[in-house]
């Protein structure tokens, strides 16, 4: 069978790798972005000088040939799904038996005046990175529009080169649509502590042009004018559906797929950021734009193609990020403001570390940690097993994943809970030999 994958991001490449793992099918991956797969979240480290671009490639270049994955550095113009062919910009035509669209995302632009000026850009692709390198040479200030994950990354990138940064954030506190109030406040403080000028409840009104069509400043919703030579538009991403639209594959916000990643056209699948999973019954359609979900989509579709039709099961939600120097891990459901949602929140006096356990009806439903590492598998298992808050607190030491010699804060968390609730719970397990054995027994035999 001939399988063509459009897009060499995490979703497309994971699909390719698993298809090779399961089968001997011919695999072709098409991407105009880079010849070989690289880690998109690592782009920031290239700009910061932590890594060279080659370090962001998870596999050495010989890997693809050895695994018989054909890598085509080309742009797919259209898909002819009647004849099952993909037309490439080079004029070449690829025939397929199964086609996987993994075309990723593109940056949101909200029709701001001046959004297409020179010196104004988003950060998503390798090309964006190269452009940012050119756009930020010898600038006196950079402006970041948007208070999400890419926004704080761009701020950190500029900051690493000692370029003063102003962040314009619509909300009253950083990322408070996702983070609970205390955590949002902590990151807000941390951003300012770094020396970033963070303007809250401030939106971009327009981007001002100089006589050469380059950005010279911005005007905010509060009427202030800020001089700058560089504006990063980082107000989120949306599915990249250009190819699907040109090829009459049904789309909405993303390429419409069912829970098997099948589009409405036979033998065409869509995975990763570009897919919009139609939810039958209640709830909104899902667009998942995380690294981890891209990986899961790719693995699922490979299984469907090579083994048996496999329904996507996202499992318990998790995500992680790093806000400057503060690591963030979240498992399960946090800050959903559902009825009866409670949480125990502990914060270190240095105000850079926190642990939050969310529960509802006494059942633990989520974890949200800043600066303290917890074991993914253990937290996930507790949520899946619907463990009670008291059980989780008593066993909390098993979850700690901080390096050796680190201070352990679980006694403080449990003391806090006891004080608030008049209980006298104690930690039953410490992270020693026996706790560890238990942890190992929870690991699957194969991954």
């Amino acid at each position, binding site marked *: 069978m001939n399988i063509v994958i459009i897009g060499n991001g995490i979703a497309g490449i994971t699909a390719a790798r698993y298809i090779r793992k399961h089968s001997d099918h011919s695999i072709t991956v098409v991407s105009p972005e880079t010849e070989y797969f690289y880690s998109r979240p*690592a782009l920031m480290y290239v700009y910061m000088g*932590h890594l060279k671009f080659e370090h962001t490639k998870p596999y050495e270049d010989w890997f693809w040939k050895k695994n018989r994955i054909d890598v085509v550095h080309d742009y797919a113009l259209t898909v002819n799904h009647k004849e099952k062919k993909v037309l490439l910009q080079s004029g070449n035509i690829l025939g397929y038996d199964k086609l996987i669209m993994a075309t990723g995302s593109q940056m949101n632009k909200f029709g701001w005046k001046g959004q297409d000026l020179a010196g104004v850009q988003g950060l998503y692709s390798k090309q964006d990175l190269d452009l940012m390198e050119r756009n930020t040479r010898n600038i006196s200030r950079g402006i970041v529009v948007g208070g999400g994950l890419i926004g704080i990354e761009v701020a950190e990138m500029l900051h690493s080169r000692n370029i003063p940064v102003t962040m314009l954030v619509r909300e009253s506190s950083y990322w408070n649509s996702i983070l609970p109030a205390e955590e949002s406040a902590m990151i807000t403080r941390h951003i300012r502590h770094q020396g970033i000028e963070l303007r809250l409840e401030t939106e971009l009104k327009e981007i001002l042009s100089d006589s050469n069509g380059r950005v010279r400043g911005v005007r905010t919703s509060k009427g202030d004018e800020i001089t700058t030579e560089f504006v990063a538009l980082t107000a989120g991403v949306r599915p990249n559906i250009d190819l699907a639209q040109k090829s009459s594959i049904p789309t909405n916000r993303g390429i419409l797929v069912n829970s098997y990643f099948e589009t409405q056209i036979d033998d065409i699948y869509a995975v990763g950021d570009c897919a919009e999973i139609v939810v039958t019954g209640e709830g909104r359609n899902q667009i998942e734009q995380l690294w981890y979900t891209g990986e899961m989509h790719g693995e699922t579709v490979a299984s469907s193609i090579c083994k048996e039709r496999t329904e996507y099961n996202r499992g318990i939600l998790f995500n992680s*990020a790093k806000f400057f*120097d503060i690591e963030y891990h979240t498992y399960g459901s946090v800050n959903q403001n559902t009825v009866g949602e409670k949480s125990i929140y502990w914060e270190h006096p240095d105000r850079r570390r926190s642990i939050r356990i969310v529960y509802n009806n006494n059942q633990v439903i989520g974890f949200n940690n800043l600066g303290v590492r917890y074991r993914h598998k253990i937290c996930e298992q507790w949520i899946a097993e619907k463990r009670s808050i008291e059980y989780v607190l008593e066993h909390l030491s098993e979850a700690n994943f901080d390096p050796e010699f680190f201070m352990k804060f679980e006694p403080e968390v449990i003391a806090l809970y006891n004080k608030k609730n008049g209980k006298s719970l104690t930690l039953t397990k410490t992270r020693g030999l026996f706790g560890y054995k238990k942890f190992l027994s929870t690991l699957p035999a194969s991954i």
Partner: protein
Amino acid sequence: MNLIQIDIPQESHAVNDSPLKKGGLALFAIGLLIFLIGAFGSFENYSLFYSIGSLGLATFGALLFIFPSRNEGLPGIKNNGVFFRAASNRGAIAWITAVFLTAFYVVLYWFPEYFVHLIKSTDPISYAMTGKAANQWFLYGTLYTLSVLVMGVKMLFKYRHIRYQIIRTLSVMFFQLVFSFLIPHFLEALNQPEYYFSYFWPLKTSVLFPNDINWLLSKPGALPQFMVFWGVTMSLIGVPIFTYFFGKRWYCSFVCGCGGLAETMGDPYRQNSDKSLQAWKIERWMVHSVLLFITVTTGLLWANSYYQGALLGSLSQGFSKTYGFLIGAAFSGVIGVGFYPIMGSRVWCRFGCPQAAILGIFQKYFSRFRITTNGSQCISCGNCSTYCEMGIDVRSYAQRGENIVRASCVGCGVCSSVCPRGVLNLENGPVKGRVMK
């Protein structure tokens, strides 16, 4: 919301070049200059001035350069610009440094007569410790220890938010200063054999070589006998037991002097180790060949000793010299340290050290140590692999959610420190289920 009211300036851009830093750099340069001028005999009769003016000033300057860095931004991983700087990215400065260090070792080992005057800079220290004038090895030991201590302080600041790194760095600083510098020289002062309690067979072959053991046993007093006992017991029993419980890191990253230099002075170069599969293949062949060579030789020497010299004759005498030169000098010094800026800080440990090889075999097959990965959170960014000084492609395991159990891992913990998603953790645990497939 009063949660976000804070009393820090809205903008406080890190100043990289404080006057203190510049002054420190200037003092370091002046110290170095005085040191080099002394090489031509200018301070022949002023060894105290020479000592303070060169080593003292350079150390003080270096510390002045390091201390203000504490105020440059908040604690965190700040590898900013590592791949932009010529010094850390195999640029011209790196090559100059490499040539300089290599030349230093070549002169030290083969042409020590050129160091006659430089040695004077350590005379006052040597007199204070042993009552004797310094020789080239005393000079080397002093410079080595100073490098570990000064760059150790830099390491402590760099990783001040990571207790594992702090404790590990303090440990190598302590072992270098006390076990590899003070104790051997005090033993000398007490007319005892110069002995390094922190080195074992097969790195220090003499611990198990019959001639050396006989020589120690022929000395009067209980101390030489203890030295034989210590060396043999640690090499054959202590090392495997410690490695079983903690992995090879207990030695390579906490005790060893070579490791100490690699983890302190070598730290700025750790990213230059080759991560390719090809390099791994070469490494395995080389390092195990060295171990095999030493093991066979040790066996032959004992057989020879048993047959009272009938087996090897005068050859056995020549061996320790050959080994000392080929492995001890040429490899561990010239390539091992000289090539830091080009091939990374652990080039000797990785390709040549027999101790690392045997510890690696224990670690791979008989140890509770492993690096675990936290679920499926790896984003394949490559920071772990890039900053692995042993050239392990850590990411290739982490992105599959597998434990990392590799013979060469010295357990420095930097992969865990630089991981932006907190995926990696060094742990000891039951051997069963340690290697996941």
